[in-house]
């Protein structure tokens, strides 16, 4: 087996997903041996090649410059896999999409006129073809490794898009929503984290974004029947995957119903 050349790219993001790669402590030597890592600024390598067999892309597109850069990355890449909520759904910074970016820049920067930014934060797939998306804020180390090893073995990675509840029940957790009335987005959230938060007796906050058949309206009814707050549901939906259409539209309908009821 030849070692595939690999690049890891960063766009608008917190670096947490890249750190997840470095955080594969027990497997790090094996990864470094199996992959020919040529571009990964966070870890050191910085060779600009005409072609990488695999590109892992973290972050969203928030500037004209990055919109140019992702097209360049795409041209240099065989497979392009996005890692994390920013690259896949625009990330927490996509909250700007429904706000006034000019006001944000003015509030934060001493010289806002020096800041050249777009009005939106958009996922990589809005700009170029993406071969596979890994969800999460950050991505799951296990899912990342499973994807890499599947590709090395010439097998299709098995990334499932059903709800967190499936993994949660497989793990044998007590349902925090049904048994404790906890605020949980698990029923509408994409699996892949092995139900990390409910395994620690706290509600899922949806960092993997919407599941394949997410029904946010039904979850709203469920939260209300449980005595949970509409506002908290909106805030939770509009966090890490604020621009994922199913969460964004769902949150809007929750807000609409909340206003109607006042």
């Amino acid at each position, binding site marked *: 087996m030849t070692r595939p050349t690999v690049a890891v790219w960063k766009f608008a993001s917190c670096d947490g997903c890249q750190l997840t790669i470095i955080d594969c402590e027990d497997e790090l030597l094996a990864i470094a041996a199996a992959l020919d890592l040529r571009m990964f600024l966070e870890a050191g390598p910085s060779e600009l090649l005409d072609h990488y067999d695999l590109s892992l892309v973290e972050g969203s597109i928030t500037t004209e410059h990055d919109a140019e850069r992702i097209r360049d990355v795409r041209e240099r890449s065989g497979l392009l896999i996005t890692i994390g909520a920013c690259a896949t759904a625009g990330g927490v910074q996509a909250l700007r999409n429904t706000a006034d970016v000019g006001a944000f820049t003015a509030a934060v920067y001493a010289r806002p006129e020096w800041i050249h930014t777009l009005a939106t934060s958009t996922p990589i797939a809005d700009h170029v073809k993406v071969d596979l998306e890994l969800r999460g804020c950050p991505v799951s180390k296990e899912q990342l490794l499973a994807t890499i*090893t599947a590709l090395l073995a010439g*097998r299709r990675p098995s990334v499932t898009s059903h709800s967190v509840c499936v993994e949660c029940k497989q793990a044998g957790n007590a*349902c925090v929503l049904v048994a404790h009335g906890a605020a949980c987005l698990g029923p509408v959230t994409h699996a892949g984290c092995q139900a990390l938060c409910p395994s620690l007796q706290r509600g899922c906050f949806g960092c993997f974004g919407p599941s394949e*058949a997410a029904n946010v309206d039904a979850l709203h009814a469920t939260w209300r*029947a*449980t005595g949970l707050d509409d506002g908290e549901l909106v805030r939770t939906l509009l966090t890490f995957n604020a621009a994922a259409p199913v969460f964004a539209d769902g949150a809007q309908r929750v807000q609409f119903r909340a206003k109607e009821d006042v």
Partner: protein
Amino acid sequence: MTGSHAPVAVRLDPRVGLDALVRLLAADGYRVLGPVVRNGVVEYDDVMSGDDLPTGVTVEQAPGRWRLHHDDSGLRFAWTPGAESWKRYVFPARQEVLRIRRTDGSFAVTRPAPPERPFAFLAVRDCELRALAVLDRVELDPSHPDPRYAQRRAGTFIVAVTCGTPAATCWCTSMGGGPQPGTGYDVRITEAADHHGHRLVAEAGSERGAQVLIRLAATAVDEHDLAAVRSVAEAATQSMGVRLDGAALPTLLADADDSPHWQVVAERCLSCGNCTMVCPTCFCSTFSDHTALTSDGSAVVETVREQSWASCFQLDHSALGGRAVRATTADRYRQWLTHKLATWQEQFGTTGCVGCGRCTVWCPAGIDIVQEAAALVAERARLNSAGDFRT
């Protein structure tokens, strides 16, 4: 129960007697599994002594709601089962099926060893006994038995318990069962607390069950004990009533496939799959391969094939030619309900539902399978009387 011997039945102290039973089964080489309270729910796990089992625990169940309560009654079996069922032990949520290791120019396959000890299941309700029978029918079918299931199921010692406090969501009496297990157990325990005292009445249901009870060297039961067993079961049965004619459901739901009611349910359904995960008879599973990296990175040398629970609420469950055949939530809910309550009969000669109510309680949206089935049946009846019934 064998031969002409008098049935073996003894009176056990709710604390000391239960403890002795747990320890005896463990000493006999069983892996004893029983109810434990953890994170506010009742689960089944390894138990080492009688004290590991709940005491003074009751449960409040409603659609989409489960709450545990503690009291000072000292009762041992006043709880009802939680989301967990014995399915997890005979048909694990995730299990290794085989391991393939590449060696020089060839490969070797190993399969996991069977369990070292047979299971002893403690506090098995009638619904759960029937659920095991339903799973046995599917997994041990002579034409395609599951060898891993067979290994796990072999020699299971069953300590059944009479269900004295059925929950509001229980409907076993509609699905051919009842609060009192009638067969298929080694020992049956009924908890009685009346003016004759608080005690457990343990009756043998098999020769090995009788041997265990004899070795406990407990007091033989008297007529008050046996009367208490009858009255506990009768009171529980009466408290439940019959919510639906379970036996008629295959016929009543036979042509409900184009009902507009599926869409009504779909609007409330989260499509999360919880109902199927907690169902003690749902047996769908999927297989996936997991490859380990070797430290020298030279090659992938070991792959583990894993079997894990799957759900008919997953899109890829019905994927054919790259697309889901059951593309909408209405399609998937229809598949779940009609398979469970109707077409299972045609496929396996039994019902797929034992009336435990788990799918209703653990549905976050609180969709009640009985209510939905009843609505469909009523709709069919209306159409029928309007002469609009398809033939």
